[in-house]
């Protein structure tokens, strides 16, 4: 590790169980951030500044005015730009020692396996269950973790899925919720996205207790966190053997 890197990451290298070795693990890791919106923004920023060596961020949208209340990767001058492209630029301004692959594509059954190629983890920051289920299947096929997070207004939830060890997304939510345009506060996306990033960093470094087989549910109205237990469904057609 270069002296410059030691200086940059000094405060986190000093965290118990991180050290130079943990920082090296972050540097050598590759993550897929699926979605560069409300959740994807804080996830990408915090993983970039933490020194994740290779960030692949995928989104097919363009930045619009109504994104700016929560998608903190973008500013007024980015309106009309491709999100992935703008995100890649910003992330390299935060940390130019990392490699960012900015991909402007819609995640589909045709490309999800390719997009997850060589990734150590998947961070689900998408906004619909069609894609969330595809990411779940890719995570199961590749046997890599999937960090699920979702929000609604001032509420949100997240869990860490480890194929073969925990409930998969289909075990937890066999069917998607009714389609609706969800209200969203930027702070909520920030809270849930940061926690997803935290889980990912812990997994890569190999420290702490992951949010496995439990889902953390946040309610900003009552300012309470609570947990519900999750378990693999032995009848799940997607993950049960």
């Amino acid at each position, binding site marked *: 590790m270069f002296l410059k890197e030691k200086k940059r990451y000094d405060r986190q290298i000093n965290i118990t169980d991180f050290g130079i070795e943990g920082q090296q693990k972050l540097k050598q890791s590759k993550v897929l951030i699926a*979605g560069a*919106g*409300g*959740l*994807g923004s804080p996830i990408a920023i915090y993983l970039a500044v933490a020194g994740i060596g290779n960030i692949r961020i995928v989104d097919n949208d363009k930045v619009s005015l109504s994104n700016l209340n929560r998608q903190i990767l973008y500013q007024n001058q980015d309106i009309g730009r491709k999100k992935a492209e703008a995100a890649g630029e910003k992330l390299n301004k935060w940390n130019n020692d990392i490699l960012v692959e900015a991909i402007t594509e819609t995640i589909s059954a045709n490309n999800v396996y390719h997009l997850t190629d060589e990734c150590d983890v998947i961070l*689900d*920051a*998408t*906004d*619909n*269950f069609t894609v*969330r289920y595809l990411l779940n299947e890719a995570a199961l096929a590749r046997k890599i973790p999937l960090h699920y*997070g*979702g*929000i*609604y*207004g001032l*509420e*949100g*939830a997240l869990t860490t899925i480890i194929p073969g060890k925990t409930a998969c997304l289909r075990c*937890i*939510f*066999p*069917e*998607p*919720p*009714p389609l*609706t345009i*969800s209200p*969203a506060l930027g702070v909520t*996306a920030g809270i849930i996205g940061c926690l997803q990033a935290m889980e990912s960093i812990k997994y890569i470094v190999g420290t702490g207790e992951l949010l496995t087989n439990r889902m953390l*549910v946040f*309610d900003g*109205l*009552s300012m309470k966190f*609570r*947990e*519900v*237990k*999750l*378990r693999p469904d032995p009848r799940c057609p997607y993950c049960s053997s």
Partner: protein
Amino acid sequence: MALVRFAGQLRKLVNGNVELNFTASNISECIKNLDGQFPGIKESLCDNNGELLESINVYVNGDNVRYLNGLTTTLKEEDEVDIMSAFAAG
């Protein structure tokens, strides 16, 4: 009385209330009582056979009733019930 919470987009079914208190002997009765106060809840949570929709999870003290006794899961006064569907937005 059991404490009942609706999360996410389901909260609009109870006019945005964060927490409600209901006396009920089991989940089925709890939903029936809720439907009496907030008409339409039952059909948002259950199918035509009266079973919970696959998109709905009901937790009693953090345990999913699918792994307990489903709608006949008994409720005690101090129990906490969370009713939620997935959070889809990102």
